[in-house]
């Protein structure tokens, strides 16, 4: 039950580790120009243990490749350096090493910029330019390094260009799918993919059975690099709405749509999101974005890629802070609505879809451990967390935008550290807390505030489910705190 699955583990990614590989016919030594553009990146990462939120899991290392970009920085995937304690760069030619820090990281777009702590370390290397000129049918090259530092490139064919799922299940951006017979090498976690000496994509997943690559597409890299110049980094925007097709002729007639209208049915609008602020409502039919026609399946015609999901328009083609004109049909009338795009920060979700690079928040009161519900907590149940984790909590996570549109946090009693104060409560776990000492709770800060005001000498804790309420002796809790901390070796009884 306590098996930890890292949030970012790519499915089927190089499961079979052959050591150094023999070159296959498709492989050829890379042109010398590219030799000086890539470095090895070794990252030692350590995730927090959400079942023991005051602890970290055992450290592990990931080895990938980074690309030197303009400005003397190194571009890698965010997965490679997620939850890092220590990042090391290694020159392919000389084997020299230097440490690096994360300058900008975007877990949703799965990209990060690293900065070398030794300014001279990258001297003599050549930065790679980014190209967005790749389409289905093009041939590209995947770069790898032999253990002796010799660069190797493998030809890959771009088969599909589409909006697909990135490392986190909620984020979808432009993705290149490629077919490619790739060999495992020890730095294979992140691999640059080039076309004509320019960076075209970043390998994100490789399925060795079907020999297919899912890659972060050039336009996404481009967007990330442009946005990284902005202070503060604002991330990839989202429109904050869900849509479904309008192919059904009965639906179209009911919505009074012309056959030429195209359009998608807006079935969900995030409270406080860009679409909501623009006045878009559930039931509207979105027919155009910035004068680009939307077809009944939610695609538009991209000049290079052909049919593409409109998600690409609002997340990648447009930047945070930018406005777009959306045309909707409501009750048969056309309306133009101006939508200002922005990203919803991960902290803005009721249940954080990911918690990376920061410790989980918790509050221990007399042996009762309280935490804000996060998806990372649910993932602690392992690969089958959707079925194995407490079903009410999984349901809350899955339908959080319907259930908790205001984004208030869900506080749960996660477990009991048995003490004399908790006699009779040992079996309680994973209960949703509604009130502490009579006060409704929006987040753990409010919980901490409410804990300062016990009622008649008791902490009264109320739950959404049975047993509905329990009590702790406030005086006793205070007196036993030091002993509790000692018994269970907890460095701090709270982290907010």
């Amino acid at each position, binding site marked *: 039950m306590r098996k930890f699955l890292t949030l970012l583990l790519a499915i089927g990614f190089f499961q079979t580790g052959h050591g150094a590989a023999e070159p296959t016919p498709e492989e050829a030594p890379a042109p010398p120009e590219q030799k000086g553009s890539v470095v090895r990146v070794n990252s030692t990462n350590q995730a927090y243990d959400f079942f023991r939120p005051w602890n970290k899991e055992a450290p592990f290392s990931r080895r990938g490749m980074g690309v030197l970009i303009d400005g003397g920085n190194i571009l890698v995937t965010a997965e490679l350096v997620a939850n890092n304690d220590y990042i090391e760069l290694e020159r392919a030619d000389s084997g020299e090493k230097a440490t690096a820090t994360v300058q900008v990281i975007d877990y949703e777009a799965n990209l990060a910029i690293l900065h070398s702590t030794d300014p001279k370390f990258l001297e003599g290397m050549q930065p790679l330019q980014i190209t967005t000129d790749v389409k289905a049918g093009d041939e590209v090259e995947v770069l790898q390094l032999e253990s002796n530092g010799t660069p190797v490139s493998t030809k890959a064919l771009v088969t599909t260009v589409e909006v697909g799922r990135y490392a986190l299940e909620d984020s979808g951006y432009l993705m290149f799918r490629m077919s490619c017979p790739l060999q495992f090498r020890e730095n294979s976690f992140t691999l640059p993919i080039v076309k004509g000496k320019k960076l075209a994509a970043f390998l994100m997943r490789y399925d060795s059975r079907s020999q297919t690559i899912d890659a972060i597409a050039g336009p996404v890299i481009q967007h990330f690099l442009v946005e990284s110049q902005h202070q503060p980094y604002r991330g990839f925007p989202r429109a904050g709405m869900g849509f479904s097709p309008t192919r*059904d002729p*009965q639906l179209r007639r009911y919505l009074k749509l012309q056959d030429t209208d195209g359009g998608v049915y807006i079935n969900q609008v995030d409270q406080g999101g860009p679409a909501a602020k623009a006045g878009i409502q559930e039931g509207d039919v979105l027919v155009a974005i910035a004068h680009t026609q939307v077809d009944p399946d939610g695609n538009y015609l991209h000049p290079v890629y052909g049919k593409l999901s409109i998600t690409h328009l609002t997340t990648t083609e447009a930047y945070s802070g930018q406005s777009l004109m959306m045309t909707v049909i409501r009750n048969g009338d056309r309306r133009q609505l101006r939508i200002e795009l922005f990203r919803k920060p991960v902290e803005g979700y009721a249940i954080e879809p990911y918690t990376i690079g920061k410790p989980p928040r918790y509050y221990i009161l007399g042996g009762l451990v309280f935490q804000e519900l996060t998806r990372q907590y649910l993932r602690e149940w392992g690969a089958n967390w959707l079925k194995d984790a407490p079903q009410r909590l999984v*349901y809350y996570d*899955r339908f959080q935008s319907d259930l908790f549109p205001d984004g208030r946090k869900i506080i749960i009693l996660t477990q009991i550290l048995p003490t004399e104060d908790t*006699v009779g409560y040992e079996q309680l776990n994973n209960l949703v807390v509604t009130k502490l000492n009579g006060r409704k709770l929006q987040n753990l800060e409010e919980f901490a505030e409410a804990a300062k005001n016990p009622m008649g000498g008791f902490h009264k804790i109320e739950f959404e489910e049975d047993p509905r309420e329990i009590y702790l002796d406030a005086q006793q809790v205070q007196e036993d705190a030091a002993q509790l901390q000692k018994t269970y070796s907890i460095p701090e009884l709270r982290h907010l």
Partner: protein
Amino acid sequence: MIPRVALVTFFFLVANAIAQIPKGVEIRKSLVRITTTSQEPDYKVPWNPGSMSVGVGAGFVIDGDRILTNAHVVSNASFIVVEKEDDPQHYPATVQFIGHDCDLAVLRVLDKSFFQNTRPLTTGGIPAIESPVSVYGYPIGGERLSVTRGIISRIDFQVYSHSGIDSHLAVQIDAAINPGNSGGPVMQDGKVVGVAFQGYSGDVAQNVGYMIPTPVIRRFLKDISNGRYDGYVDLSLTYFKLVNPAERRALGLPDNEQGVMVSSVSTAGCSYGVLQQGDVLLTIDNLPIASDGFVQLDGERVEMPEIVERKFKGDKVKLDILRDKKKQTVELQLTGNWPYLMQANHYDSPPRFVLFGGLVFQPLSKNFMDAYQVEDMRLRYHYNFFVTDEIYRTHPEVIVLSNILPDPVNAYLADLRFQIVDDINNKKIGTLEDMANAFAQKCDYYVIHFVGSARPAVLERSAVERARDRIIGNYNVQKEQFVEGGLLK
């Protein structure tokens, strides 16, 4: 603990079998062999009559020319035949009363001559642990009456697997009981001390069989004595043991190991409006309730609900409670609690459904979930938390778009399968009847909204009417709806 799923009922499915007459066994004047032809409804094709099967179980003669057996021996029966040991004749029988919550049934035989030369059995008490018993029936392994012996291993509350949700007293015995023993008497000193009914399959546990003890049997027979089976009654509340000293002090309780706290009160049960969350239950029918929820009854420590287990619909129960630290006495008139039956196995009635435009709508139920094995998270939540989150208050029946018979009229609706209906043309849907009524209205469009943020399904009346005969013909639909019945009375 052994998983509850492994519990199997001892009902023996066979092709055909002929009774033989064993000699020298006194029980032969009382034992009955029951052969049932049953039709199990198909929840995936709800208009079909379902698949037929034949099974053999046991029963025994009781006073008043009746036969007592397990409910599961005669559930979903379309034809029942009974035989007795010294008579080659087969007698058709019918179910007079059936209690699915306690897995007992009483049969009548149309031909009264069946009961000539039979000897009704009488019931005894709860046998002592380690005392020997004999089990009679027609288990697998031969055709004739079989007897096995064992001892009483344990007396405890158990889930009765026939309904899958009800827990009553059950007695564990180590005699070999097998499919075909179901409904047979378990005897001690010439009296019935139980009815063999369930056990674990051999790959889970050996020599673990269960019988329904006489308090449950007597309760059933008394319940039906007014000509109707009302079933078990319930306090319809949950409670929390008051063991924690701080909690006891906070609630104003002395340190006397007495009292449990009411955690929740079902709005569909008899405690609603009388008891409330936070009340401390001190006594039940003047018996002190210990802080762990047990009471002392007839020299035995039993869990508090056992007091109510022995009562009947309309009976009263008296409770001393502590509310806001003040003592009060309340009286409850006991009733059943219908919402939990949604999670119980159902028998003896065809699946309820409405078919419209090739869309099949069915109320969520245990049988539904077993048939469809749904993974949909919203649906699973509505099923698992129907009672605890009181979903029944807004959706007495959770109506699901369970199946789609593909046709041009519904060609673009496939992705809406397993959505839960919220309203039709902005009229809220709480029951299957609401659903049938909404479709009976003449409208140009039927706009079906679902719970959550799925898009609506839109059906044009003209298109549905054009598709109707085509769908009925193509899919051999026997009838387009069956709405009667349901849990909500």
